[in-house]
């Protein structure tokens, strides 16, 4: 270990007038972490029933210039995407996340839409991705990186379209963290010796998050010139959510 590391940690302990934490103290902190105790979660979204939560999500998202189109089935996605691109005067060409959750979208119903699956490249103008969750309290999307969900799709193209299922809308960021933990590192069930997904592990057996979690709340913006908000500073100018209301809330 480096001298700098030892000096800094030693300096911290000297300043705090103590040595390294005792085993008991360390165990207490480890327990604090493992408990994932929530601090105060605002009532704004937590107190709502699923339908009201969806409405809040949409209202909060629209407040920050996200556009939302509600469709009743995954089968409607191609039509909605075609409509949106035409309405925004954008080319009928998009790069779609190679994630299996999007495999069932019947793109062939709109043969004029040119679809490529993969990561985003510099010339891509429009992307379409799935997401992990929508957080109602601020109209925030939660996206996780992975082989099927490259992060470049969320930032390089000018227009980012996100497929969100109504059942994915949760109340709070904390609900989102729970979802992440369940998805990527479910805790072992009683009597179970091996983690069900066998995903990578962090230190001390802690869950390992995906490389990148993006919490996205509206399109890219800047107020750096005279505090006048401009959309599309470096990331997407447009963020469009196709909200698929095909299942009752799972949360």
């Amino acid at each position, binding site marked *: 270990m480096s001298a*700098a590391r030892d*000096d*800094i*940690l030693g300096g*911290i*302990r000297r*300043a*705090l*007038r103590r040595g*390294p*934490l005792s085993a008991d*103290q360390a165990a207490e*902190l480890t327990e*604090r*972490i493992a408990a*994932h*105790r*929530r601090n*105060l979660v*605002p009532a*704004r979204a937590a107190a709502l029933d699923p339908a009201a939560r969806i409405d809040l999500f949409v209202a*909060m998202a629209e407040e920050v210039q996200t556009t939302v189109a509600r469709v009743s089935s995954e089968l409607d996605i191609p039509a909605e995407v075609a409509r949106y691109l035409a309405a925004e005067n954008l080319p009928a060409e998009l790069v779609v996340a190679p994630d299996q959750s999007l495999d069932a979208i019947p793109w062939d119903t709109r043969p004029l839409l040119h679809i490529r699956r993969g*990561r*985003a490249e510099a010339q891509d103008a429009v992307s379409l991705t799935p997401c992990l969750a929508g957080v109602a309290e*601020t109209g*925030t999307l939660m996206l996780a*990186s*992975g082989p099927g969900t*490259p992060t*470049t799709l*969320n*930032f390089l193209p000018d227009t980012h379209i996100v497929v969100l299922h109504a059942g994915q809308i949760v109340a*709070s960021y904390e609900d989102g963290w729970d979802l992440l933990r369940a998805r990527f590192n479910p805790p072992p069930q009683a009597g179970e010796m091996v983690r069900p997904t066998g995903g*990578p*592990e*962090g*230190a*001390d057996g*802690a869950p*390992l*998050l*995906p*490389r*990148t*979690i*993006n*919490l*996205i*709340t509206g399109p*890219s913006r*800047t*107020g750096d*010139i*005279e*505090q*006048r908000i401009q959309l*599309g*500073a*470096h*990331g997407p100018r447009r963020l469009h959510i196709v909200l698929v209301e095909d299942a009752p809330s799972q949360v």
Partner: protein
Amino acid sequence: MQPTSHSFPANARAGLADPILQTALGLARTGFPQRRQEAIARLPEFEELREQGRAIKDHALANLDFYLELYERNVTAAGGQVHWARTAEEARATVLAICRAANAKIVTKGKSMVAEEIALNDHLEANGITPVETDLGEYIIQLRHEPPSHIIAPAIHLMKEQVADAFREAHTELDPARPLIDPRALCDEARTVLRPRFLAADVGITGANFLVAETGSSIIVTNEGNGDLTQILPRIHIVITGIEKIVPTLEDAATLLRLLARSATGQEFSSYTTISTGPRRPGDLDGPEEYHVVLLDNGRSALLGGEFQDMLRCLRCAACLNHCPVYAAVGGHAYGWVYPGPMGAVLTPALVGLGEAGHLPNASSFCGRCESVCPVKIPLPKMMRHWREREFAWRLNPPVYRSGLRLWAALAQRPALYHALAGTASRVLGWAGQLRGRFRSLPFAAGWTAVRDMPAPQGRSFQSLWTEQQRRSERRR
């Protein structure tokens, strides 16, 4: 950067006399507080969240060694590398070594105050590497070769005309006759010019708003998306940040995130909150192949356990700057180093020395607005007063001020003499000022009467009148 905090009064005068700066500050002076007020009015739990935010940071600081070690283990387990830097120099050297090992030519940067603190750009340039600031405000001031004047809005001291001038000078490949008349056009031009740099960069450097111990993650909060392009496109991502950014869990981060954007820009949530854990994973189609975190101390650990520990809670949201009437009067450059406003008035003396930065904690009317809006309730005025106590104890104040203060204090501890003098002063000044009711100039209060009248005393001290009145009523009894 070489601090000029010792010449704060001259810097401040320059700021006050700069009409462009004053116009720009005029926009910020009401805009930021109003937007923050609107945002917190919508969240009834905001005050309780501030209290919890403070407790979270205090807990993390009290166990900083434990959480840093856990964080390091988790970064390593995720395939990243943690580098510890005691000083600015060590941090610069570490970043340079990583860049050199990658044979880097172009380095893109997300906005990082720690990078400003260690003057990273100068060091990279001196070693043949081109740093490209990608936050619009940072890009503008990089073109103008000046430091940021605000910790979240680096170019807040400029109006669009100065930005247009900087762009015309720098972007010589573009049509000189192009109109650059509004922020939209300027923003688009920056986007167009910077996009190829993002794609060409070998290394991307960002700061971190939080480090999460339980997951080994760094979190950045931005609105432009530049921080994300900076970290996902190059082969190497370097996070450079201070050791005090640690929080235990994602739950703790969520609480602080609820405070951050509302306090900073008055947004409910910033556009992009990005949680990064290690480098690209097997099967990933993008993302950096290397993930490095440089943890900077640079005097921070020495603040623990003392009267300035509370400063380590700072989230760098800039609410204290946005609500400070002194900042609004003089602008950020007057403070003469990286961190301006109330948080800078406390932090700068700790980082560059009280001899250099002694003015900063003095240049406050102690109006307390900074503390009242701080999302983690840092007692900024109290800590400025602690600096003044050190200054007084170390005899760093001007001798005239010291002796005047001591003389007054001696008098204040002798009530009989004090009342006699106050009575006389009141009579003399009251008599001298009775015709106009005020003085247009007073030789011993020239600083006051240079810019405002001095209302005349009414002519008798309260104590003398009260004593007289009490005597009269006693005689009557």
